[in-house]
């Protein structure tokens, strides 16, 4: 699969690394060249400096040939705009975005984008960790969360 990932923060970089190790053709975009430091030295994908909503850049990286596009920058608006451009203008089949605002996340999910909202899940989990009777219980709980996500 050819996968384009916009935003090379901790999440984008971890995602890029995992997809790349599984043998996919990965392109990571970030406006900040120092962001690529989150990628491991043996990362074989393509690193491109630039803005994932810039039509010139998207043409240059041939976004229309991608099978999947993921937007994981810090900006909700940038993420959903880029996802819509990828889906509706470049015809990318699978587009996914991280959206911090729960209401916007729900709205764009209903509009046909694949979205996740980390805010609510994390708040719920944090609350459970705080309410755990002992530190050991909290630690066990945190391990359990990781396990649920296959980590």
């Amino acid at each position, binding site marked *: 699969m050819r996968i384009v990932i916009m935003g090379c923060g901790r999440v984008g970089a971890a995602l890029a690394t995992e997809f790349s190790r599984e043998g996919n053709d990965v392109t990571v975009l970030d406006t900040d060249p120092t962001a690529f430091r989150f990628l491991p030295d043996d990362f074989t994908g393509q690193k491109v400096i630039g803005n994932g*909503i*810039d*039509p*010139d850049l998207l043409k240059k990286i041939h976004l229309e040939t991608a099978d999947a596009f993921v937007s994981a920058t810090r*900006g*909700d*608006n*940038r993420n*959903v*705009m880029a996802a*819509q*451009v990828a889906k*509706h*203008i470049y015809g990318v089949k699978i587009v996914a975005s991280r959206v911090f*605002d729960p*209401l*916007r996340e729900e*709205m764009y999910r*209903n*509009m046909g984008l694949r979205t996740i909202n980390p805010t609510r899940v994390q708040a719920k989990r944090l609350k459970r960790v705080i309410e755990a009777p002992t530190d050991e219980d909290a630690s066990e709980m945190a391990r359990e969360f990781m396990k649920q996500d296959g980590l």
Partner: protein
Amino acid sequence: MYIIVIGGGKVGFYLAKELAESNHEVLVIEQDPQKVQEIQDELGDIAMEGDGCEATVLEKAGTSRADMLLAVTGDDEDNLIACQVAKQRFNVSRTVARINDPKNEEIFRRLDVDITVSATSAIMAHIEQELPTHQLIPLMRLGSGLEIVEVRIPDDSRIVGRPIREILLPYQSMVAIVIDDGGRPKMASGDTIIRAGDEVVAVTMHESEEALREALMAPPPARAF
């Protein structure tokens, strides 16, 4: 009408002022508390602090009864999302987005923003009109790829002295108005004779601009003796 303006910078400020003076009910939503204060001081109680892309903020602003939402911040993505949230969640029937980067015009059109306003493009078009060297001046873009353009017929054009029906125009192009050098406009018909110095207003496809320029302005082909 109840009109919500997202972004209280210079554009938002003067827009709100203008709309309020025309007796519309206006609310400006702006993130920077200092700008909110400035608007309150100058224009009265018509500004609210908050992120105009956030549904909770728009809810508080009574967006569901708004007739129009104008998103005029300096960030294109924020303007797009504000319009989409207003439309999707609050059924606002008309949304207008300011576009800062002209490259985004096409994108916004395809993502269903009702109206886009690009200051950069407007300034460029205005300057193009003033440039005497520019031969074919785009006046206005219509829907479906058509545009209205203006051409001044040079003295050596091959169509000088000929009626419009004899001009071979490109596909989907037509001459609409001919303005003579005295500034008198007339509707173009097949019999209208083109004179040197006439201003011709034509409708054409954007892709056909060059072909139209050629048809109206090119000198006659050189003859071999």
